[in-house]
């Protein structure tokens, strides 16, 4: 194999942390949320190892749980009914509940007037999130960050339908869709007219077309990114 002789070409100077704009936002600051929990919630709720029900139900595994579902906790009729009607605790539903409990569950017994400030509420929700399933271990667990369409750098945005960006984005398609157009189990997307492609992506994005994987994939593409993909696919047709 090659010898140890080390040649340092100019590119060695590029040894640098690549900086890209990090896209998503975590729910909030869990540390600040912990302080808030201590002050506003811990009189009635327990969370963490060995937490048990007190005046309020224990809050481990809250995200993804049906409302009113902690065994042996005497819920209000109102909360129990919301649970059997299908209310599940997610970032969105908890956000609404913590902001104004009685607005979401009219007869709730929780004597909490609500937390109107968006910032502290997000911090509290981030703290609570840390005690529910981890997506690394249970991929279907509730998300830990809010989806954002990426903050594209102006240099990228300036380019209308950037085929090079499209080529990079398309590498996500080719995990499942084969470039040679084979279509067993997963449809072929080669030689798909660019216009139809754009319409289909927007239809997935708006969940008009069914299919969970595609709704998820398209749902996080910005309009510019869909245009970039179309531009790239158009270069393949040539």
């Amino acid at each position, binding site marked *: *194999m*090659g*010898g*140890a*002789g*080390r040649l*340092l*070409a*100019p*590119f*060695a*100077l*590029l*040894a*640098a*942390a*690549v900086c*890209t704009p*990090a*896209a*998503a*936002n*975590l729910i909030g600051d869990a540390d600040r949320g912990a302080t808030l929990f201590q002050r506003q919630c811990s009189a009635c709720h327990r969370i963490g190892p060995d937490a048990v029900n007190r005046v309020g139900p224990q809050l481990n595994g809250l995200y993804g749980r049906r409302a009113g579902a902690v065994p042996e906790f005497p819920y209000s009729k109102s909360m129990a009914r919301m649970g059997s009607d299908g209310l599940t605790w997610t970032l969105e539903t908890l956000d609404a509940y913590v902001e104004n409990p009685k607005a979401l569950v009219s007869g709730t017994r929780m004597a909490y007037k609500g937390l109107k400030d968006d910032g502290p509420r997000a911090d509290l929700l981030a703290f609570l999130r840390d005690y529910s*399933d981890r*997506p*690394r*271990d*249970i*991929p*279907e*667990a*509730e*998300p*830990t*960050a809010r*989806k*954002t369409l990426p903050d594209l750098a102006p*240099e*990228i945005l300036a380019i209308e339908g950037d085929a*090079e*960006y499209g080529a*990079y984005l398309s*590498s*996500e398609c*080719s*995990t*499942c869709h*084969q*470039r*040679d157009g084979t279509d*067993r*189990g*997963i449809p072929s997307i080669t030689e798909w007219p660019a216009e139809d492609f754009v319409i289909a992506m927007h239809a997935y994005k708006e969940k008009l077309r069914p299919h*969970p*994987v595609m*709704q*998820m*994939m398209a*749902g*996080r593409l910005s309009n510019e990114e869909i245009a970039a993909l179309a531009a790239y696919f158009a270069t393949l047709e040539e």
Partner: protein
Amino acid sequence: MLNRRIFIHSAVAATAALSAPRVLGQTKPRVVVIGGGAGGATVARYLAKDAAGALDVTLIEPNATYYTCFFSNLYLGGFREFESLAHGYDAIAAAGVTLVQDMAAGVDPAARTVTLAGGGVLPYDRLVISPGIDFVEGSVPGWTLADAEVMPHAYKAGPQTQLLKAQIEAMPEGGLFCMVAPPNPYRCPPGPYERVSMVAHMLTQMNPTAKILVLDPKEKYSKQALFEEGWQKHYSGMVEWIGPDMGGNVVEVRPGSMEVLIDGEVQKVDVCNVIPGQMAGAIAAAAGVTDATGWAPVDPATMQARADANIYVLGDASAQGDMPKSAFSANSQAKVAAMAIRAELTGSKLFPAKYSNTCWSLIAPEDGVKVGASYEPTPEKIASVESFISQTGEDAALRKATYEESLGWYEGITADIFG
């Protein structure tokens, strides 16, 4: 035009550059990749393909043939031939990657070299490490790697997978198959439970009075409601799952006598599949990029090791946040890393990182389910931003379509990884 980003981020890099002999224009930037699996093979092929000759890419992998862990459970269930899991590196070589069939034995991050078990030394400008997993010693009391010949893990595909299948086929009538399930985090969260399903399918065909015992240190696992529904429906009465509240977390094995101790109680077993606790493949620690957890923290936007800006870590070995350890994840991360490395070394455009994952599992013939999520980088971690999962009670047509989709995915991803 974007975007030659030239930052000297540490005094060390600057001094090294100054003190080293400068021979301009003689070599192309060198990228060395350790491990030709889902992460490593993808990154090597994409780097060579997309840099179109501007990079010198070397892939170090000891095996001439890679057997995918993904779909190895389907082999156990009799749905695939073993050889259908095999993939070679010819197309990767044809894409312009130099293959080195050897084991990386050490990394010198200061000198930026990799030492091979065979003795050679490879210099790099950027190193990518994607060695998969190794097992944590002492994770299952009574079991060491040497015992894998008796109680196989079959969690690195190859002879171990064949051994486990042969053992299942040789089980006495009405015998007991035992799985010691792993603690979090481990590769492929639904993997052990898909395996239980496949073993149950096989036993239902050839040894219907046999039983399956799963000893699990975890309270919950991925797709649990789907698996439980499927086991009830297809293999009623065959599978018993023992969680931590019943002693599933206090397990010891005795390979010599084929016994398992569950919270001290002795159980005789016929086959024992021990899936121990896991950590990054050993070379990651040797390169100094792992932390106390045994995994390698990385920058969520690029997969660059937090400990060393010249090293990228992909796949199972990385600690990146919310992505499960899967081939889909490793492949997804590899494409981001390839893009980031090209931006660093060739000045190509740096795009936002996009990550996703979907894991399909087969529960019974034509009864497929899936779980997926998309992820975005935040400063702290790669974070899950949206997820979905198959529902209990889905009709047979949808489950069949999901299974067929998984077959398409396997063809698609192996073509994407190996060319």
